[in-house]
């Protein structure tokens, strides 16, 4: 029986609690999630066994849920690293309790999203052909490259700022000391170590921004490099990046609100954090609408017949409900909820974020399916209903994400303890000095 670990005396005791105390809720959650994952795994095995015929995909709609979810999950993964890097870079002091959570989202969701193209393969056993016979001219290979780079960079970017916290857990002793001992890399909180760590974080934070942007740009290239009407558009790169950051912020907000409730972090995640991120979400919503508007106006004004056919199909065809649902979820709901002070409460922000996540998923659906349903050549219009296998794997993907997050919170603090301490100790004087340096006056004030 391991001895009871003392942490109550710590100022940030509440951040240690989920690591050292395991309630019934934890086991129930993990159990349910594991059941869903096992179900998804079973469904995937049937797919490998019988072939992709068990999905709802067909000719001409040869891509379905897997590609939609691939783009969707990778989009969510932009929450993390990109937002955290931008907040760090802009020295936003309110970032401190948010960055860790954001980075965890990236690492887990990116792994899930990155595996989706493999789910989609007819011959997953030949996936290594990508390395032995890969064609770098193919946008799919660009994807493999940039997602691998992003995954590497973002896991390191998640791990580095965790080192001082892991050292703290190591010093507490008790559970898993060998793991913490290994992961903390001999961290002793010396001045030199701090300097090196900060430097490394700074370098990575700059590096990770272009990589993150490249990832979703390249995913848009998969579509825009083909000649298909509705896809072959130069706006797709930035459009996808904006959509990715948009859905990423929404996912981050949902996770923050959930963690605040479950782990009692009201003291750390305050209303101001939600409002700042809510404003960011509002800006992204407007930006998203701007891109969508430009995309469709250009198509409608030019009215190239094939292009116009697909636009009309999206507006009025069998997928119209998804198109207008997307406009409602991505623009109307968030703008109303986030644009008026009265609705911009934490509940309001939660609803807006849920709407955005659903809306962005619909957007991916609206991009992938209608263009494929209407081939250029005069074939009958295709129709696509996802099968139970595809739904199972979608649920499985979400379950893996939640499970990953729950397990992470069991072993590591989800809010950076050392950065919170640093904020308490140094941030106020630092910010004061910084503001002093902005103000007109004697040069000597600034360093």
């Amino acid at each position, binding site marked *: 029986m391991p001895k009871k670990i003392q942490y109550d005396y710590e100022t940030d005791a509440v951040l240690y609690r989920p690591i050292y105390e395991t309630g019934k809720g934890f086991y129930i959650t993990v159990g349910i999630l594991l059941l869903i994952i096992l179900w998804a795994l079973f469904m995937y095995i049937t797919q490998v066994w019988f072939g992709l*015929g068990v999905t709802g995909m067909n*000719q001409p709609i*040869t891509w379905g849920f897997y590609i939609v979810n691939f783009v969707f999950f990778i989009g969510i993964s932009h929450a993390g690293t990109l937002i955290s890097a931008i907040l760090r870079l802009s020295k936003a002091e309110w970032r401190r309790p948010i960055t860790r959570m954001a980075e965890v989202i990236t690492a887990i969701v990116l792994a899930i999203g990155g595996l989706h193209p493999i789910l989609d393969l007819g*011959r997953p056993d030949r996936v290594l052909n990508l390395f032995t016979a890969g*064609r770098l001219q193919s946008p799919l290979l660009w994807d493999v490259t940039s997602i691998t780079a992003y995954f590497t960079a973002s896991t390191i970017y998640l791990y580095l700022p965790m080192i001082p916290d892991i050292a703290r857990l190591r010093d507490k002793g008790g559970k898993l000391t060998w793991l913490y001992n290994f992961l903390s890399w001999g961290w002793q909180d010396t001045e030199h170590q701090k300097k090196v760590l900060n430097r490394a974080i700074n370098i990575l934070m700059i590096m990770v921004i272009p990589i993150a942007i490249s990832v979703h740009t390249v995913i848009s290239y998969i579509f825009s490099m083909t*000649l*298909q009407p509705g896809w072959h558009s130069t706006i797709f790169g930035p459009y996808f990046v904006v959509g990715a950051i948009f859905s990423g912020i929404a996912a981050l907000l949902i996770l923050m609100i959930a963690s605040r409730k479950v782990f009692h972090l009201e003291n750390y995640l305050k209303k101001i954090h939600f409002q700042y991120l809510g404003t960011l979400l509002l800006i992204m919503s407007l930006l998203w609408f701007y891109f969508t508007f430009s995309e469709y106006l250009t198509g409608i004004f030019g009215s190239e017949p094939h292009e116009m056919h697909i636009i009309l199909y999206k507006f009025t065809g069998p997928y119209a409900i998804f198109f207008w649902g997307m406009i409602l979820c991505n623009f109307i709901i968030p703008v109303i909820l986030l644009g008026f002070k009265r609705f911009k409460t934490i509940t309001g922000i939660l609803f807006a974020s849920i709407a955005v996540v659903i809306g962005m998923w619909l957007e991916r659906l609206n991009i992938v399916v209608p263009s494929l349903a209407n081939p250029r050549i005069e074939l009958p219009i295709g*129709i696509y209903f996802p099968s139970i296998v595809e739904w199972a794997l979608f649920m499985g993907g979400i379950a893996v994400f939640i499970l990953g997050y729950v397990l992470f919170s069991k072993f590591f603090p989800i809010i950076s303890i050392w950065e919170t301490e640093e904020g308490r100790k140094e941030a106020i004087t630092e910010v004061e000095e910084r503001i002093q340096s902005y103000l007109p006056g004697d040069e000597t004030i600034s360093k």
Partner: protein
Amino acid sequence: MPKWAMIIDLDKCTGCGDCMAACKLENNIAIVSPEEANNGRVMFWMDMITMYEGEYPNIQIKRMPKPCFHCDNPPCIKVCPVYATYINDEGLVGQVYHRCIGCRYCMVACPYTAKVFNWYEPEWPEEFKVCFNPDVSVRMKGVVEKCSFCAHRLITVKETADSEEREIRDEEYLPACSESCPADAIYFGDLDNRESKVYNLSRSSRAFREFEDLGTEPKVIYLLKKE
């Protein structure tokens, strides 16, 4: 180097579908159950497009055989991540079934929707299994396949011509669809040979190619009287 091309005379085509049947038998294409076919899993290398024009009761039905267009600038090979589809010196666009990973990117990129996918392990009625064409490999589930212009026939023709020490004659190498067409509507031959039938027909005022503006330069040319 020859440049193999197909000419389909839509003024002669009766839309009987014999080309589709001949193609299916020649290339060991899986027989898909009617239910699965209705779900869009039908497998044809030579497909038949049916277009309805006009309002009831004056409906005109137009049918158009559609093989792979063997583009000179094929959008499918540009996107393949593993070199599983390629164009050779003679302009034939091929598919390597044993390398294909089944990502279906080429199917998505093809503006002519010419490729089909093995959604299940391919199946045939028992009687078919004893009379497979030995020259064409049978595919496995999870790979993309498409019309090859019966490239296996070219090998035989080449070997015969080589052993007799002569050039390949015009219309010596014919794909199954062209050979079986009862209306003689499908011509096949070398587009670079000025004596060939295909070359002369391709310069007809009736000749057109599908989506010429896309720059894919298809090597299947249709003939249709301008109305």
